[in-house]
């Protein structure tokens, strides 16, 4: 007997209010917002220019002149953390967008059209067989190390994960009576896909997206650390750490601050995602 399926998310228009009712999720939301604001407003906030050298002021500890100290070329670490945030967040965000574009398409197709389910699912399985960093490394090695290619590589890495989530939700939604009602009315399939399926996949997708955002930031840092990611002359938190690592002893702040920024960002994204998951899609807790 087909199991009785429950409707996935009950829509809650006042999501923000609901998030605000959970302290950890709210904290996550606030921190993420602050970090995004700081990055966006970097040119206004930053006391220096991001690549303004002052070799003679190199490796100065945090102080009044330089909130977070200076790096090995005498650049202001605070400024660079802000500017790096722009790239790191942009990369993370672009990965989410790119991965979603592929993942949603694949997931919808596999979930909605039985015919494509088996082939697409097998493809997803095969893609998931590659550990994320490994696949990303190989793809970056193949495409060449540039920010755009890192985004493409990570997007390809995370797309199957999203596709799985979307497929799973689509499989459930496809069978729901409101989809059937639409078919009974003769609503064209593309409209059904968008209006009924996609719209209800948005919740689990949003939850996943926050986690992928977080993961992408970590992965980018990992790739940069390994020296196979974004070119080091583009400041990202990952590249800052990989450079700062050499001064772990003399000037630990060069690595601490971008590292702290990563941890803070990733942690708050996770808190936010966790909160969203609780509100939007409790069933998802056990999915990938």
């Amino acid at each position, binding site marked *: 007997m087909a199991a009785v399926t429950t409707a996935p998310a009950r829509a809650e228009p006042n999501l923000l209010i609901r998030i605000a009712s959970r302290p*950890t999720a709210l904290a996550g939301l606030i921190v993420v917002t602050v970090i995004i604001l700081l990055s966006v407003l970097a040119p206004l906030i930053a006391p220096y220019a991001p690549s303004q050298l002052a070799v003679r002021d190199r490796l100065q500890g945090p102080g009044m002149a330089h909130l977070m100290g200076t790096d090995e070329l005498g650049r202001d670490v605070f400024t660079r953390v802000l500017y790096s945030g722009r790239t790191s967040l942009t990369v993370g965000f672009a990965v989410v967008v790119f991965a979603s574009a592929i993942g949603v398409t694949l997931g919808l197709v596999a979930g909605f059209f039985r015919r494509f389910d088996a082939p697409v699912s*097998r*493809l997803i*399985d*095969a*893609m*998931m*067989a*590659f*550990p*994320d*960093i*490994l*696949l990303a*490394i*190989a*793809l970056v*090695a*193949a*495409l*060449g190390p540039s920010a755009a290619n890192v985004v493409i590589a990570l997007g390809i890495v995370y797309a199957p994960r999203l596709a799985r989530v979307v497929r799973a939700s689509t499989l459930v939604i496809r069978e729901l009576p409101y989809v059937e009602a639409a078919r009974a009315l003769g609503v064209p399939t593309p409209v059904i896909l968008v209006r009924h399926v996609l719209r209800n996949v948005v919740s689990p997708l949003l939850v996943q997206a926050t986690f992928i955002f*977080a993961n992408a930031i*970590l992965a980018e*840092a*990992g790739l940069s*650390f*390994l*020296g*196979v990611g974004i070119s080091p002359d583009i400041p990202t938190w*990952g590249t800052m*750490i990989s450079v700062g*690592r050499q001064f*772990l002893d003399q000037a630990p702040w060069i*690595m601490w601050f971008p*590292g702290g920024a*990563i*941890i*803070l960002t*990733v*942690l708050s994204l*996770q*808190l936010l995602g*966790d909160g969203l998951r609780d509100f939007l899609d409790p069933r998802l*807790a*056990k999915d*990938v």
Partner: protein
Amino acid sequence: MLRSALNRLIGMAIVMFLVVTIVFVIVRVTPGDPAAVMLGPDATAEDIASLRERLGLNAPIPVQFLTYFGGILRGDFGQSIFLNIPVTHALWLRAEPTFFLTVFALAIAAAVALPVGVLSAYWRGSAFDQAATMLAMFAASIPSFWLGLIFMQIFAVQLGWFDTSGYGGPGASFAERMHHLVLPAVTLGLISSALITRFTRAAMLDVLNDDYVRTARSKGMSEWRVVVRHAFKNALIPILTVIGLTAALLISGAIVTETVFGLPGVGSLIVSAVLRRDYPVIQGALLVVAGLYVLVNFVIDMLYLLVDPRVRY
């Protein structure tokens, strides 16, 4: 049972075939001429042309694919450009540290995560749960190389309990080699434990709300028995899945951790292969690692058959 095993086996074969195809495609999209890469900067145009001929790079793509696929079926993954040995051999030389690293890391992760996950689900919303959830999330937010560096700084450099890097010299005893794995395994284990903790908690929460748990309680048994015998055993099924997923996570982690700790494992081989443009090694490593992942998940599927009498694929 046999039938479902066979079904899974066929599924696995299909996935493996796709894996092989994906790797082929990745290597094909790599810009630049593999022959030119292999021969290095001093090569003449004639050298490159003759190597292309020898490698079959002039054949049509489907023929190339067949040749390549045939090679893989025979266990021939090609020759490392840099190391000048067969890729399989290179991987085999590097297998031991990676194998033990992942096994230890998984053991550590499971030893930490399972009890913590079970208890925080059981005491949902308690201070313990909140602390554990926060900690797990925090652990999952730390870049693994960062944690490795800090451990190295404390335990190897300052306390001197471990070597900072390497895997022992020639003839190093097994114990000595394992000693080198302690820090990397702890690093990797702690970070992976975050994921397993969260999944364990979620799986336990799920089953703790199940009707049969209420039935078990209504029988008048101790909570311990309810949780372990009735709830946990059911939660084990999704947890097994995570452990399978963790296998991939561990290998990703191993790539970074091995690099930090200078372990001569498959992970660091992959990184050096990328830096050295040793495409056959990259390709071979991708295949082997993905193959292992598929295999691990196949084994886990088989475990389902043992644990869960309902599973009939």
